[in-house]
């Protein structure tokens, strides 16, 4: 038994009912190591870390922590041993103070069982200083920036005596600067001997941060030799499992006035102040901006989800009245939400029913409110073919599909209403690379047929491949517009951070 090994995963497998989520996984992690897990959604990353943290048991194999078999320990006992999972969704309590968040579950008690606030705040302050986080312990967590909130989550874990911290996609919605700050923070803790399991789908940052990388694909593990030398190309091939042809787009370069399809004039609403922009036939307009900048709000206001307080939206010179998604769809605007579970799928419905939803009373209309079921099936079958939706039949329940295929169904539904403008709000979040490319190329095809699209994503590699033009949002306004020519990711983040820093 090698005592230098902190976590020893031996031949772990896991199945849920009929699906085998993990097959024969063996990983060893030493103290002070950053071990990254790469893989598409559904590859088994979350399953594996949940098994390590004790959220659910494995069906085969064993896990040792500091030489001890932790099979029979529940999540709390594993936390006591030093295994801490920092989940993707921030799990702090926004309406409690920083100190309360650090101490939650083990609040220091004074006489009569009351909380000893003084000790708590003092200890918290000391820990914050020690870990280099410059915030007051009495600050409400709600008021923290997202980077500070993430660091706080890690400090919480450290406070609980963590020796192994599992970070599930901690970098989403951080600027480059903030991300580097977070990485420096993690490296500091690593120097002191804390081990990390790091999950991310940005290959670049995984390569930068990790000592070791394991790729998971279809529940099987593929260790990466010499992770520092591994190229992104090599990694993405390992992740995808096959050569994925990245979708390429022929840029639109000519913008003639008669090609103007949509005009937005002085739009005002939530996070939008007098925003004006034009959209041309067949173009894909990329949008860049942080949460709250107006970027996402622009998407949602155009679709009638957010209220338009002022200004007007013109389609070929004609004013549109969009007060709800229903109005938007009727006027040829479609929207794909960043949250397909909350704002996309009807989990109880089949693939077919999910696709038909946006056109029940238009294309599928029969007298007396009846649905043209035959036509609905036909349309669903068509999209199943063009978007390569993987299912046994269109009568499969949507919940039985993989994330990527579910998203294809959501895209199909939006396209089914024959939109003139398709708004895509993080359409590829949490889906596999192959599905992503298939979705992008079908959007490409649609724009070639004359549809316009607005594309909002934080994955700038993807954005640069897709968009013809980029607009940058900050403080509810458009602050920069550039054509997508000779731009790279660094260039985009520079423009974005510049306008962010220039307050």
């Amino acid at each position, binding site marked *: 038994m090698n005592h230098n090994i902190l976590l020893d995963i031996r031949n772990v497998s896991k199945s849920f009912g009929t699906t085998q989520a993990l097959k024969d996984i063996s990983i060893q992690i030493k103290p002070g190591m950053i071990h990254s897990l790469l893989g598409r959604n559904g590859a088994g990353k979350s399953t594996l870390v949940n098994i390590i943290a004790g959220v659910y048991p494995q069906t085969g194999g064993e896990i040792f922590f500091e030489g001890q078999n932790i099979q029979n320990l529940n999540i709390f006992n594993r936390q006591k041993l030093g295994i801490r999972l920092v989940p993707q969704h921030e799990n702090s309590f926004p309406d409690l103070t920083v100190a309360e968040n650090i101490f939650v579950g083990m609040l220091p008690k004074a006489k009569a069982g009351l909380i000893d606030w003084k000790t708590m705040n003092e200890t918290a302050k000391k820990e914050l200083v020690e870990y280099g986080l410059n915030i007051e312990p009495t600050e409400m967590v709600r008021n923290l920036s997202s980077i500070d909130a993430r660091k706080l989550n890690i400090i919480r874990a450290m406070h609980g005596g963590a020796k192994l911290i599992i970070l599930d996609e901690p970098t989403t919605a951080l600027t480059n600067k903030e991300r580097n700050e977070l990485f420096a923070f993690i490296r500091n803790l690593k120097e002191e001997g804390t081990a990390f399991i790091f999950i991310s789908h940005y290959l670049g940052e995984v390569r930068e941060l990790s000592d070791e990388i394991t790729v998971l694909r279809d529940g099987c593990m593929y260790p990466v030799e010499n992770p520092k030398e591994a190229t992104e190309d090599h990694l993405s091939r390992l992740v995808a499992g096959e050569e994925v042809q990245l979708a390429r787009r022929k840029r639109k370069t000519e913008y003639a006035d008669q090609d103007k399809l949509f005009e937005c004039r002085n739009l005002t609403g939530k996070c939008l102040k007098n925003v004006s922009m034009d959209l041309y036939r067949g173009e894909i307009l990329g949008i860049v901006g942080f949460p709250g900048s107006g970027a996402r709000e622009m998407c949602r206001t155009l679709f009638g989800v957010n209220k338009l307080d002022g200004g007007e939206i013109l389609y070929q010179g004609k004013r549109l009245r969009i007060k709800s998604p229903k109005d938007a769809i009727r006027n040829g605007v479609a929207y794909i939400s960043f949250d397909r579970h909350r704002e996309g799928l009807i989990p109880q419905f089949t693939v077919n029913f999910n696709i038909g939803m*946006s056109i029940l009373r238009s294309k599928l209309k029969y007298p007396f409110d*009846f*649905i043209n079921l035959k036509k609905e099936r036909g349309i669903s079958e068509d999209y199943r073919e063009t978007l390569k939706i993987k299912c046994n039949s269109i009568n499969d329940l949507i919940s039985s599909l993989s994330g990527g295929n579910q998203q294809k169904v959501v895209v199909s539904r939006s396209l089914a209403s024959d939109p003139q403008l398709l708004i895509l709000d993080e359409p590829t979040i949490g889906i596999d690379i192959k599905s992503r490319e298939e979705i992008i190329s079908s959007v490409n095809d649609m724009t070639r047929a004359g549809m316009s699209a607005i594309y909002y994503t934080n994955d700038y590699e993807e954005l640069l491949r897709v968009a013809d033009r980029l607009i940058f949002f900050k403080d509810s306004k458009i602050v920069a517009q550039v054509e997508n020519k000779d731009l790279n990711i660094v260039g985009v983040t520079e423009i974005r951070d510049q306008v962010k820093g220039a307050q």
Partner: protein
Amino acid sequence: METKNTKTKRNILSICMNNVVWILLVVSIVVMGMFKSSFYSFGILSNILVQGTVLGILAIAVSMIILLGDINLSTVGTAGFSALIGVMLMEGGLPIPLAVLVILAVGGLIGLLNGWIVTKLRANALIETLAMNMVLQGALLAITKGNTISQLPDSYKYISQGKIGIFPVLPLVLFVVFLVFYFIWNKTAFGRSLFAVGGNEHSAYIAGINVNAIKIGAFVVSGLLSGLAGYLLSAYMGAVTSSFGRTFEMQCIAAAVVGGVSLTGGKGSILGVLGGTLLLTVIQVGLAVLGIPSTMITLAGGLMIFVAVIIDASRNMYQAGK
């Protein structure tokens, strides 16, 4: 990997889970017959259908709202109040067909009010419909002063008491209503939207469904059906009593849930509701035939709802674990 055998087992279990109401129905009919062979007489079997009609219609009424993921506790109150209005106007000289229309209209209006309060004022449906039920039943009691309005004209009562040959007319209504709602639930945009809203309101909204209109529509239909049930029950009893329909209050919810209408919304089938209705009626009539004292009926009703909830919960658990 899973063997073929366990897969077949799974499928069988899945079919059983989804049709549990029909299995229970057959079992209870067989058991009743074992204790009392006269249970299989034409009289008793047709009586079950007659008794089941009002319950079945109320079960659809409440299902319309359960499908949304909400609940409507005011169906019986609506039935009683609208029947009272219709019967009073009839006594005041309104022709019978018009009186029947008034009953339906009053039911629909109460539904509209429910729907409006729940959607536009964002009131909680459970409390709102509970309050509405108390108001309506209270009004019934206040207006009748505890007396029974009886001696209704024969042509009013025909639908519930009349016969074609030896066959009672009432089950025909049950059949027609279920057929109509089979089409509404499965073939119309309104029905599909109803399931969509109950399944995931936000997704339905983003997909262009007018969520509020669907909800209000569901409440109106629920009210209309309650009115219809009020008409049929008053015609069946030949009277409007101050405790009109009280026995159906919880039974209709039980029938829907036993029949597979999920309390979390978005899931259910009209055939299941029919099964649930028949099952509860068979048990109810069966207990009477077996001579179980009427003081036990409430207990039996409570146990039935208990079974319903447990079936619903285990079905959900089973599906989550799949």
